[in-house]
């Protein structure tokens, strides 16, 4: 595994919805070596508060020298990122962690909830490069957060279904509810989003004997496997470190009930 410490430059800032932003960053080393599901650690602030870097999935690799991050503003780090302007510098470390496994499954399903959609666009791009049939299920609070992303998944040739908490687009309810009917014929499933959504996805896939990978989150100090801070409960009564053993894990490695 080789990672880079790179001084990226902001190329573009888009506001996709109320709290959803997308940054395009020029970062040639990271761009040329990222795999779907991997992440970067971004130094958001100018000085020592916020102190730690924040982890963000690689949302898309635009070309060999630039990547995109998609994020929701939830606190100080993401507030500072949303205030970036073209030309600003953003220090990154990446690509980090273990990404999604792409095997020869010809029909796959991607399930994304909220900001968990971020890594799935990159994954879909890779899958579509080799012509896999992709069904993409997207869930979010409200229609606005999904509009642009739906367009982009569609443009890749994915079949997209949508669920919203407020019923403003697609199915009025949880995205995981859409999964059952879609699983027929699916050879592999990928999920990223709130834990209950991933747990539900894992459960349905287990029942249908469909290999399923999930992308988890944990508080991270280093992203490098050094601090041992990013633990989640694994099955077999052991702790998993998300930044090195994940963030993408096979659903059966995770102790969902803890």
């Amino acid at each position, binding site marked *: 595994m080789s990672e880079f410490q790179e001084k990226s430059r902001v190329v573009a800032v888009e506001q996709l919805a109320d709290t959803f932003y997308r940054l395009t960053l020029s970062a040639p080393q990271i761009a040329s070596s990222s795999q779907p599901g991997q992440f970067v650690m971004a130094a958001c602030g100018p000085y*020592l508060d916020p*102190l*730690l870097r924040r982890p963000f999935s690689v949302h898309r690799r635009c070309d060999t020298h630039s990547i995109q991050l998609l994020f929701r503003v939830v606190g100080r780090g993401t507030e500072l990122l949303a205030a970036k302007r073209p030309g600003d510098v953003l220090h990154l470390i990446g690509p980090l962690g273990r990404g999604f496994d792409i095997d020869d499954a010809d029909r796959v399903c991607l399930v994304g909830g909220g900001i968990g959609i971020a890594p799935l666009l990159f994954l879909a791009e890779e899958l579509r490069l080799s012509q896999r049939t992709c069904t993409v299920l997207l869930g979010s609070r409200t229609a606005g957060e999904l509009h642009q992303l739906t367009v982009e998944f569609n443009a890749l040739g994915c079949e997209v279904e949508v669920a919203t908490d407020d019923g403003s687009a697609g199915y009025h309810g949880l995205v995981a509810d859409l999964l059952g009917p879609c699983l027929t014929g699916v050879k592999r499933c990928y999920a990223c989003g709130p834990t209950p959504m991933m747990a539900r996805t894992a459960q349905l896939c287990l029942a249908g004997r469909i290999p399923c990978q999930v992308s988890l989150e*944990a508080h991270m100090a280093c992203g490098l496997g*050094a*601090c*041992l801070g990013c633990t989640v409960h694994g099955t077999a009564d052991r*702790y998993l470190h998300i930044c090195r053993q994940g963030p993408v894990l096979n659903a059966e490695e995770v102790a969902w009930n803890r």
Partner: protein
Amino acid sequence: MEQMNTAPDMSVSLGPLVLTNPVMTASGTFGYAEEFVSLVPLHELGGVVVKGISVAPRAGNPPPRVVETPCGMLNAIGLENVGVDRFISEKMPFLRTCECRVIVNILGDFIEEYAELAARLTDIPGVDGLEINISCPNVKKGGVAFGTVPEMAAAVTRAVRESTHLPVIVKLSPNVTDIVTMAKVVEDNGAHAISLINTLIGMAIDVRTRRPKLGNIIGGLSGPAIKPVALRMVWQVASAVRVPVIGIGGIGTAEDAVEFLLAGATAVQVGTANFYNPSAVCEILTGIQKYLLEQGEQSVQSIIGTLRLEG
């Protein structure tokens, strides 16, 4: 003028242990060094202090284990480590290739465990020294940390010294009324050097859930926030003992490191900064050299303890 353009002498001695330069990485913040191989030129480091090792492997505390605080972080890793056997077989091979000093941080629940670790590590090629983490709870004494009771700190230090011919550094806990007494006691019991500070004990609460933000409720505070406390303690200790002192606590820039050297530290360890800026160690190294040139000093030794208090 000619002299001033030659690179200053950066070497320092921690008792029997000679370092090519005074910049080390702090235990628990640099893994087993391999985690940083693609980001840091490891051979440039004065030394690496590895994650604390115990006799048996430890799983550590339940999550969440880290949380950010203003200019700092709390950790409650719970001393997760692979245990001394796997450390020797799995981690030492890489560490031997690093071309820098390797100090093994050791910890235990009983004095006997510290002694056993010291003995086990003594003849392992590539191990250059031991650092005793006395911030751990002494199970026999009802969980009171070794590092808060002078007699217990003395006993651990003595036991380790008697079990090894390796250089022994004792790492002090800052959670005490009188750091100087602790330092003198470990000096008197054979410590070759003293490192300080370990983390301050702290806490954070999630007001939404009304739960502690750490799985372990309390944790260790580190990072720039604690630097003033660390610097004060290093100055007090360095003024009171004869053995070399290693300054630790919130060091992230060359200026920070120089503050500790001026206060009397012979070397420094960089901790939390490795997380938010993996280049910190290299920047600090270059920055100290630049400072020495600017100040017209030929060696790092010549600035140690030169804080000016008069007038």
